């Protein structure tokens, strides 16, 4: 909610300033925005559908039962994969991760889950591809997924 207010306030300020300085440039900016919006609409819709499907099938309860029962390296891998494919708001994800940790899940598993959750976005990939290209998206997500295991391993050792 606060984000929305900030964005609209910022936009209003910038639009007024831009309109005063140059009407043509403002119209040009709006046309560009519209063009990109139309161009990326299919990927926006794809992401919407994917977010719903993954969260509908993998509800927080399902995730916690999947992570909670499996201990050891396999548990960490499952956690990393679940984190990579789901897109959970942090206000839901962190309490979930915290309760799993207190219920006996290892630091390594929870680190892997949290790291892939925030850094790897399978569900948002259609949008990332639309704006940044296939190569960029693939490389960024693969490297982040690999890095999550490194982070998880180190966190397991440190904490």
């Amino acid at each position, binding site marked *: 909610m606060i984000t929305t207010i900030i964005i609209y306030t910022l936009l209003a300020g910038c639009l007024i300033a*831009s309109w005063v300085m140059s009407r043509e440039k403002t119209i040009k900016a709006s046309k560009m*925005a519209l063009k990109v919006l139309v161009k*990326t609409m299919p990927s926006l819709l794809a992401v919407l559908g994917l977010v719903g499907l993954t*969260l509908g099938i993998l509800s927080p309860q399902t995730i916690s039962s999947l992570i909670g029962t499996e201990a050891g390296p396999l548990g960490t891998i499952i956690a990393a994969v679940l984190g990579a494919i789901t897109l959970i708001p942090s206000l839901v994800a962190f309490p979930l991760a915290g309760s799993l940790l207190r219920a006996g899940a290892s*630091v390594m598993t929870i680190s892997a889950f*949290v*790291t892939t959750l925030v850094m790897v976005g399978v569900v948002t990939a259609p949008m990332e591809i639309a704006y940044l290209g296939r190569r960029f998206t693939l490389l960024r997500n693969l490297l982040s997924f690999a890095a999550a295991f490194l982070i998880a391993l180190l*966190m397991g050792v440190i904490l």
Partner: protein
Amino acid sequence: MKTIKRYLPIIIIGLAFIALAIWDPEKADASLTVSRDYLKEMILIIPPVFLLMGLLEVWIPKDKIRSWLGAGSGVKGALISVLLGTLPTGPLYIAFPMAASLLGKGAKVSNMILFLGAWAALKIPQLVVEMKFLGPEFTAVRFTLTLIVLVIIGQIMERAFTGRHEVLWEQPGESVGQKTKQMGTKR
């Protein structure tokens, strides 16, 4: 043919929804609710962000972005990128068009990895929630390790992308191909 290809993912996702509705109506219902909530958020947030990006495209000159975030920006550029990423509260999907726009204006790939990574994993409002539920130690260690990893990923991707960009935000009348060539010679 091209239109079909563009909408193929949506068609597949639509079919998946129908399959889910037959197989498990309750889960399909939950899925639809989540998608609907996201749709509401996106409708509210995406148009203003795109307009802001359009204004940035029109008003901020290329050499400004290049000197702040480009090839010669060094540590200062990296710090600006992390700062830009940690402050906002918005969802990651609005950071993608921003990164694309900045890349088109001459920002370094490694800096955009820092920006996207900070936005996804290190933003301050999210860290507060993390500290509350996972503890300050967990948060501090994860923050430090993630930052180090982002620097490394940035360096790897910088090398993989030197001289080639696939950016969507382009000046009208200037094709992406021309732009890539221009950027290649300037580097």
